[in-house]
């Protein structure tokens, strides 16, 4: 019920209908990775995934934002089915690996939605990727890595804004890629980023 209201409101304000360009919705295990510029990103990308795939598709959300406050926490955990990660580095000091909850999810055979830049930028094109995507791709080579370009979200609801404004947004899915044998971390991360950049230029 609440998910329909949330999706209805988002569609009315900013649209955000999915465009499956390089692939189709599928039950195969996937890591959707996207550029990140707004809190709308998580909600709209999740809403773009067909209902039947949502129970096994988990957005990865920052614990320092989505874990705070009862409402946000409940939206993140109960509604979006999110996996919360600690990006403060405090986890490392306490001997906990911040990627561990992601790996557990993948081991269960579920799919993930991640934002490899690690934080919200305000630009049209994504900044350099953090290494998390490389590690997951190396450890789970059979998982399809699906690039997703999120258009206009950072204009509709930029960092620090109180309310989203109605600007049409698009969620564009590209063709899956895999890590290649012997590919270095830098080369792979750049190739993954380029896949999103290419989607940004499609019209």
């Amino acid at each position, binding site marked *: 019920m609440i998910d329909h209201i949330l999706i209805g409101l988002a569609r009315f304000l900013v649209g955000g209908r999915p465009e499956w360009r390089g692939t189709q919705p599928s039950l195969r295990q996937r890591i959707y990775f996207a550029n990140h510029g707004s809190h709308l990103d998580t909600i709209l990308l999740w809403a773009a995934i067909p209902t039947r795939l949502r129970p096994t598709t988990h957005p990865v959300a920052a614990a320092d934002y989505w874990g705070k406050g009862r409402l946000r926490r409940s939206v993140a955990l109960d509604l979006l089915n999110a996996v919360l990660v600690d990006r403060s580095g405090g986890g490392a000091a306490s001997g906990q690996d911040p990627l561990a909850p992601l790996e557990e999810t993948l081991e269960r055979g579920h799919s993930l939605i991640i934002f490899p830049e690690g934080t919200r930028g305000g630009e049209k094109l994504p900044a350099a990727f953090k290494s998390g995507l490389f590690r997951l791709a190396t450890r789970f080579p059979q998982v399809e890595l699906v690039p997703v370009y999120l258009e206009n979200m950072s204009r509709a609801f*930029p960092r620090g804004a*109180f309310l989203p*404004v*109605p*600007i049409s947004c698009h969620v564009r899915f590209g063709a899956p890629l895999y890590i290649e044998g012997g590919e270095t971390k830098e080369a792979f991360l750049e190739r993954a980023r380029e896949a999103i950049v290419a989607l940004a230029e499609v019209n």
Partner: protein
Amino acid sequence: MDPTLVTLFIGLITVLAAATLIGQILGRRAESTEARATVDNLNARIRAWWLMVAIFAVAFVFGKIVTLVLFALTSFYCLREFISLTPTKPGDHTALAFAFYVFLPLQYVLIGIDWQSLFSIAIPVYAFLLLPVLAVLRHDTDDFLSRTAKLQWALLLTVYCISHAPALLLLKIPGFENKGVLLLFFLVTVVQASDVLQYIFGKLFGRHKIAPVVSPNKTWEGFVGGGLAATLLGAGLFWITPFTPLQAAGMALAIVLAGFSGGLVLSAVKRSMGAKDWGRMIEGHGGALDRMDSVTYAAPLFFHLVNYFFAA
């Protein structure tokens, strides 16, 4: 519902039914790929027309409030399309939020409560002065003038201008009380008929392009033929208006010329932003603003002509 409107809608449905039939026949005959594409586009337009007539019928049956809500939503989608194509910066966010959440609803509420004097100046005075203040508070002076101008023009065309169509319900015309809805029908019918007839005349007889760079589909043959046909249609509708047949023809001609200008200017705006259509909302029609571009120019002009010459 006004009995005249029932007659008018029956007329519209007859015309659309005929158009649908012709579209189907043409669809069977079309052989070349090019002809196919043209007929498919025509049929998509006709289908969208059925939907628009249905929405209009609902608005007219349920009266002023529903009509206002319908036009407010139209303004909303047009403003969204305009702003989506316009590069805005984070510094514009508060001004945008005020445009969408304050000035757009306010404009239609003012029509709803019959406050005509404030309706006329809320956007050109208050919004135009306030929005740049909201933007300047964000301390970003890059492209400040052009960012301000873009938002102001977006609000002017999509909210202020379009709101003049339902504002026809405000006008008090002696001997024509509570019939503003018929003026709205007259305006919308003439504007849209002019668009359609210019398109059809252009496809049938079009040779000489008027503005090949801005709007490659507009031809002199289409403009003159379609414009004259729409003017005649307007004259033929004189009996639903407070006008004589000649006055109705004059009003229709003004609507045709304004609508044509609006289409041309908005097309140039669209192209300056590198797009062919404003959006993808209506199949065969592009976005909402692709159908409302003529209305943005025709509605305020028609409103003021009627207000000046006929209102008490």
